[in-house]
C-alpha cells in the first residue's frame, strides 16, 4: 500500500513538470535572440520535447491517462512543421551535398 507516498509522489512529479516547463521557457530566450533561423528552430524543438515531458509528468501526477495521448500526438507531429518548411523551400535540383553529412 502506498497511500502516504502517492500524494507526495504526485506533488514531486508536478514539481518536476513545472521545473521542466520553466527550463524550456528559459530556453525560449534563444527564440528571441536568434540570431539565425537554425537557433530559432532549436528552441522550438526544445520546447516541443519539454512540452512532451511535461505532459507525461502531468498525466501521471494528475492520474489522467488521456493526457498521454496529447503527448503522443505532439511527439508524432514534432518534426512535421520543420520538415514541411524544409521540403517546401527546396527545389528538386537541390544544391546540398547530402552524402557529405557526417551525422
Amino acid at each position, binding site marked *: 500500500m502506498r497511500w502516504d507516498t502517492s500524494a507526495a509522489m504526485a506533488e514531486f512529479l508536478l514539481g518536476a513538470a513545472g521545473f521542466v516547463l520553466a527550463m524550456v521557457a528559459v530556453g525560449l530566450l534563444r527564440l528571441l535572440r536568434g540570431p539565425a533561423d537554425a537557433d530559432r528552430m532549436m528552441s522550438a524543438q526544445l520546447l516541443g520535447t519539454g*512540452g512532451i515531458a511535461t505532459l507525461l509528468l502531468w498525466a501521471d501526477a494528475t492520474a489522467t491517462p*488521456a493526457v498521454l495521448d496529447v503527448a503522443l500526438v505532439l511527439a*508524432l507531429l514534432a518534426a512535421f512543421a520543420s520538415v514541411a518548411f524544409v521540403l517546401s*523551400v527546396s527545389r*528538386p535540383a537541390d544544391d546540398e551535398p547530402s552524402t557529405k553529412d557526417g551525422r
Partner: protein
Amino acid sequence: MTISIAIDVGLALLVLAVAAWIIAVRDAFAAVVGFVAYGLLLALVWVRLAAVDVALTEAAIGSGVTGGLLLAAAARLRSSEAPAANERPGATLRVLTALLCAGISLGLAVAVLSLPDPAPTLAPMAAANLPATGLGNGVTAVLLAYRAFDTLLEKVVLLLSLIGVWSLAPDRAWGGRPGPRRVVRPDGALVFLTQLLPPVGIVVAIYIFWAGADEPGGAFPGGTILAAMWILSMLAGLVEVPAISRRSLRVVLVLGAALFFAVGLAGFFVADAFLAYPMGYAKPLILVIEAALVLSIAAILGMLVAGPPERTEER
C-alpha cells in the same frame, strides 16, 4: 496545491510573452516559429483546463498542421520585399489602436471575472443523456448527437473553403494538380522519417478516433493526424498530389458531409426528426459517420494545405 497554481500562473505568463513577441518581432519567419510555440503552449493550457479533447485537437491542428502551413508560406514569401515604411501606421494611430485594444481586453476581462456564480452548465444534461447515445465521451456526444447540426454545417464550411482555395487557380490549371512536381530526394534522414512516420501516424490516428467514443479523442484530431501524414508524404514526393478533377478524390472529400446528411434525412422517417438517431442504433451510426468524417477531414485539410491547382495533367 501551491505547485499547481504556480504552474498555471507561469504557463499563462509564458503564453502571453510568446504572443507579445509574435506581434512585436520584426522578422516574419521568426514570428511564425513563435506561433508554432504558441500552439504547443495552448495545448498545455487546454490540459490544465481539463479539456483534453480540445488539447488533442489543438496539438494536431494548432501547432502541427497550421504551423507547417504558415512556415511553408513564410518560406515562399521570403523573397518578397518588406512593406514600405509608409505602409506602417503612424505613432499616433498605433497608440490609439493600442488603447482601443487594451479597452477591449479590459472589457473581456471584466466579463470573465463577473461570470455568474454558480456557473450555468449543460454538463449534467449531457451526462444524463449519454446512455441513450451509447457513448462515454461527452464532447463526442455533443459533436455528433446533441449538436450534430453544427458539426454537419462545419463540414460544409470546410468544403466551401476548399472551393474558395481551388477557385484561385488560373484557368489553364483548372482540374490539375496543386503545387510543383516533387521528386523523392536522396536524403537519408528525411526519406527515413517520411517513410517511417506515416504508418505509425495512421495507427495513432485510428486509435485516437476509436478512443474518441469513450475517452478524449475523436474524428477531428484523428482526421488531422491523417492529414498531416498525407501532407508529409506529398511533400516528400512519395505520393502524388491528386488532380482536383479526380472523381475518387471528390467522393472522399464530400463523403463525410454526404453520409452525415443522409443519416440526418433518414432521421425524419425512422426517428421523427432531422439528425435524430433511432433508439439503440445511435452508437453504431455515430461511429460510421465519424469514420467517414475522419477520411473527409483528412482529405479536405490535406488539399487545403496543398493549395490551388497549378499544373495540368499532361505536363
